[in-house]
């Protein structure tokens, strides 16, 4: 595994590679045109009378001012269309993952005979094209993993598609790239590319129900989780908690973050987010729960941390 990547200049998949190639081609061609324009201006002011006379001819203006831009833009458009042809297509062998942007988190559903619901962290196998089906629940969001591909808007009432392929294992950072309200800047996610066999094993575990809490403290925490109404918004598969309003918390502790990639996952951060979430991620939709005694809070946190 490498470090966390989030850069269009460091492509790690064919789609991001195509975009990078296209961007470099545009940059090179743009530089060439800029050089030509500067040279022409210089010649027009300081050049020999014969050259200035040639530049002022109607034919030169038609050639350099009309014919050249039309030809260059046509070639670039064709080149761009050809290079990015694989960005949005759907292939049968591709893996499908549906991601719904919501204020301010990501609902992730892995397609399969029985769709598997998760949130805020996306895992994909290395080397296999993944077709993302992108939706929005409330306002326009935008799905962007710069190191793997282009960004594409998630629009309420519509479905957009994006294909990404990770060429090597690693953690790629994604970000909502369309302002979507208060904590927009804290609406990011990690996309983790893993070798195929690891991915398969992980997905199988994810699909399974949550193992029951083992220690007394965790059991107390689970009772509190249900009695305090957490399950009205959050789901933990295999328990009575089946809420659909907030992120699915099944296997929550196997994800690496608290508050949707806002803080690293530690018991202390989780404790803070439950009590003081509006200070950590101002404007987020979860009310602060300051109703627990410290023993209750510890039990609740240890239950959540046990959701491996």
């Amino acid at each position, binding site marked *: 595994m490498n470090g966390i990547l989030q850069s269009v200049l460091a492509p790690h998949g064919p789609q991001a590679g195509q975009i990078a190639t296209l961007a470099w081609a545009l940059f090179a061609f743009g530089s060439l045109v800029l050089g030509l324009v500067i040279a022409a201006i210089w010649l027009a002011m300081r050049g020999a009378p014969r050259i200035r006379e040639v530049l002022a001819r109607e034919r030169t203006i038609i050639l350099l001012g009309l014919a050249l831009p039309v030809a260059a833009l046509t070639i670039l458009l064709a080149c761009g269309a050809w290079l990015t042809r694989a960005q949005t297509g759907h292939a049968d062998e591709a893996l499908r993952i549906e991601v719904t942007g919501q204020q301010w988190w990501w609902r992730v559903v892995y397609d399969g005979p029985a769709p598997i619901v998760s949130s805020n962290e996306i895992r994909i196998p290395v080397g296999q094209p993944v077709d993302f089906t992108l939706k929005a629940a409330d306002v326009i969001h935008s799905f962007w993993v710069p190191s793997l591909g282009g960004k594409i808007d998630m629009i309420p009432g519509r479905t957009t598609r994006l294909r990404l392929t990770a060429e090597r294992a690693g953690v790629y950072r994604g970000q909502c790239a369309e302002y979507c309200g208060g904590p927009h800047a804290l609406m990011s996610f990690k996309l983790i590319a893993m070798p195929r066999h690891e991915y398969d094993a992980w997905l199988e575990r994810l699909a399974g129900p949550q193992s029951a809490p083992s220690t007394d403290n965790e059991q107390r925490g689970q009772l509190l989780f*249900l*009695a305090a*109404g957490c399950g*009205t918004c959050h789901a933990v598969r295999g328990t009575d908690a089946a*809420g659909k309003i907030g992120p699915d918390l099944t296997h929550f502790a196997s994800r690496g973050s608290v508050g949707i990639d806002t803080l690293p996952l530690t018991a202390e951060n989780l404790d803070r987010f439950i009590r003081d979430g509006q200070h950590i991620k101002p404007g987020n*939709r979860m009310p*602060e729960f*300051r*109703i627990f005694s410290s023993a209750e809070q510890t039990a609740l946190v240890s239950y959540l941390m046990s959701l491996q």
Partner: protein
Amino acid sequence: MRIDPPVRIRFILLAALAALFLGSLFVWSGVYSVAASRGHFAVTEWLLTFGMRNSVKTHALGIDAPPLDNSDLVTLGAAHFQSGCAYCHGAPGIPISPIAQAMLPPPPDLATNMPPWRDRELFWIIKHGIKYTAMPAWPVQQRDDEVWALVAFLRRLPSLDAAQYRDLALGGLRVPPQSGESLATSETTARAIGACARCHGAGGARPASSLVPVLHGQRAEFIVASLEAFTSAQRASGIMQPVARALTGDDFRRVADYYAALQAPHAPEEPTDTSAIERGRDLAEQGDPDARIPACAGCHGEDALKTYPRLAGQNLPYMLNRLRLWKRGLAPGTATETIMAPIARELSERQIEDVAAYYASGGPSAGASR
């Protein structure tokens, strides 16, 4: 005769300085008497009254009075008048305390002599109080709904005789005659305890005003937490905060246990809109995930935390009022309000009406009882 301008200016400056000095000397010396016993000169009194009346009229200009001819408002206002106002302003059958009467200005006897204020002016006076008189502001500035209850009662007050007033203000409560010994030796906390039932009812009696919550059958933990929140002024109510402060921590637990053990009396049969109740049931059981409204039952069901209130059989106007207060932006003060207020803000007016109708009709237990 023409005076040289520099001389005139110098004279005015010197005179002003001398006036300032003499004025400061007067204040510093304490010669002026602040005694309430001495009263004002007639001209001072006229000037103060004139200024006060006009100030109230001007400041109340932009206030719109809601409909006040509502027995729930009147009853709630009466109960608070009894505990908060009658000491100074009297009531039918209750003379003003001579201590209050010795204030300057003496508070008007509202039972016999209600000054001719408009509704909005009474509202402004009760909400903001009046400087340099003993009239206090409403303890909680965010609860205009409570102030209007008092205004509604004051409108009814002139037409009440002593017996009618007792019925309204004491909620039909009968204080048993006490022995000479108990009158002579008992503490006065009994008065505060009696205050609960005046508004909230007790035994088999529902609250006198439907704007007051039914406490029968609530968990003791919830009632104690509420009383603590009123005492610490975290929960906003100008009516409940003084009542809760009159009790001690031990009283909280005892009175909470008393109400927790009571069977909730049946709501009076009222014409109900069954389709609203059904919509309310859906919302209570399923929530409205698209609008990010969680199911009410998750926190208000039987298995929920004991510090959360139960809603089945609760008074409809009380629930409507509380939800609308949050929706209009009442800042949450307590830990549980911090959870509920954002949810209430997401509810539409129709959802508020539906879900309140559902719980008022008995909630999940309605099927069994009807």
